[in-house]
């Protein structure tokens, strides 16, 4: 099956594109912004008449605009974190796979050791110890998620380096660094795309988990996790403050998981699920 005809790739990809578009353009449709408080309309339920599509929160801020902002922040964190893990994972895996032998064994031993660590606790520790800024969240989450990528890329590289075009490149004197990055890396794109898609939901989970605990994105900025956290405190009187961001978070996560599964069917012929 090709990329555009696979049913779960189409459906989940379409939903994700739609959500991202609305998150980018939606706030333009609303007369409200994410910061302005309105003490005459605390926790007012969703209504179209007053252009409060998702209602307001406990400070009277417009939840539609805040939710859109939250989606943007969540997606941005997840994508940047996944790119960080992509760079680390591909470089590490390709080097281990290409050099091979003892270096490979040692490098993979390190990966095995790191697998046994409860990373989330280290991320929390990082958040406690340092100023909570955006950059750190990206780096921390990215640094957590590169292990799978390194393993997959190494496996692919091991088989790629035996191929004729690599031998040919070596024969005409191309340097090992250039072989890894110019000849081997481009052949990894398919599989890397699949695993980045599967890394994004993990990164979203970590980010929203941190924000939920109050250790991630800080007020007045927000993310889906932070919105769910706020919604939990208001759910008895104003269930929409929990259900809307919570539902959207679940939808986004589910779409990424289905998209990744579908892409794996398309790109990775060996893996038949």
């Amino acid at each position: 099956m090709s990329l555009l005809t696979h049913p779960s790739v189409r459906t989940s990809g379409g939903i994700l594109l739609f959500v991202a578009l609305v998150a980018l353009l939606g706030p333009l449709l609303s007369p409200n912004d994410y910061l302005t408080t309105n003490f005459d309309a605390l926790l007012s339920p969703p209504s179209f008449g007053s252009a409060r599509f998702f209602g307001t929160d406990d400070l009277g801020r417009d939840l539609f605009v805040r939710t859109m902002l939250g989606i943007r922040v969540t997606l941005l964190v997840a994508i940047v974190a996944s790119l960080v893990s992509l760079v680390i994972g591909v470089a590490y895996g390709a080097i281990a796979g290409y050099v091979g032998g003892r270096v490979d064994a040692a490098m993979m031993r390190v990966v095995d050791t790191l697998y046994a660590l409860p990373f989330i606790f280290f991320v929390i520790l990082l958040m406690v110890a340092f100023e909570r800024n955006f950059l750190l969240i990206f780096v921390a989450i990215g640094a957590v998620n590169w292990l799978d990528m390194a393993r997959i890329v190494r496996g692919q590289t091991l088989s790629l380096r035996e191929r004729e075009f690599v031998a040919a490149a070596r024969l005409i004197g191309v340097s090992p660094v250039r072989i890894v990055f110019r000849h081997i890396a481009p052949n990894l794109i398919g599989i890397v795309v699949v695993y980045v898609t599967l890394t994004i939901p993990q990164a979203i989970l970590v980010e929203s988990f941190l924000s939920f605990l109050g250790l991630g994105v800080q007020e007045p900025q927000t993310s889906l996790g932070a919105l769910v956290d706020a919604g939990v405190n208001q759910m008895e009187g104003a269930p929409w403050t929990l259900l809307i961001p919570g539902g959207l978070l679940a939808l986004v996560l589910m779409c990424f998981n289905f998209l990744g599964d579908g892409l794996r069917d398309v790109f990775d012929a060996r893996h038949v699920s």
Partner: protein
Amino acid sequence: MLRYTLLRLLGAIPTLLLVIVLAFLMVHAAPGGPFDAERALPPDIEANIARAYHLDEPLPKQFLRYLSGLLQGDLGPSYRFRDHTVNDLIGGAFPLSMKLGAMAMALALVLGAGAGTVAALRQDTLLDRVVMGFSMTGISIPVFVVAPILVLFLAVQLHWLPAGWSSTTGTSRFVLPVVTLALPQIAYIARLTRASMIDVLGRDFIRTARAQGLGTMTVVRLHALKPAMLPVLSYMGPAIAAILTGSVVVEEIFGIPGLGQFFVRGALNRDYTLVLGIVVFYASLIVLLNLVVDILYGVIDPRVRRR
């Protein structure tokens, strides 16, 4: 078998050491001291506090002091709960967390393996699709979304179950936390079991058992279940880690005074020694349980031992 076990035990030591070094360095690389948040103290008193907690020593010496404490099972004093050691705090809060975690894990294993097996036996029917659909949903929705939604409907609206931990003392207060904690694991184990059960059911020895006239249930119970559970067994390590992580959220939402809640409080209060102690404790627990899983794997599957 003994050799295999010993090798595994030795292999766990570098991991543990790495955990301790990383955690220790992160906490000590933090800008500012642990007592900065309070009103500015006279320099003499500050020096006294630093001396009392050995913060005036060079870092390697502090680390060795911490490590030798650890070897004697001493995690040091808490910076915020002045009269308590970290050992006291963990010892007081952990049993409850362990009880929750063990119940969730048992529930996840029974329901996950059951649902996965049923789906495998009814492959490609409506039942299979429904089970797998639920399982994808269960994997995707985070604990901190499921928990409040369940509370909202089952406790606040329908009054079937208590909403918070302290509102009752009966066993009913365990239901929601345990179910929430187990849900993603049920989903994941169901998927794992289904895939490996389908694989096992296609093997020759199953065909032989069927040819001898055994019924489906007997074949599954006596022949297929054990080999099909091997991938689930190797998932136990990550599952334990996930349940520990999840318990942080669940305890926070339901107000359960377990270790997870202490961890979050400690993190927000910047109680460095407490947070460091809990990280080291959790990490050692995970490494240890992974080790148990590895050894169990060797017991169940003799092929592994020879590697």
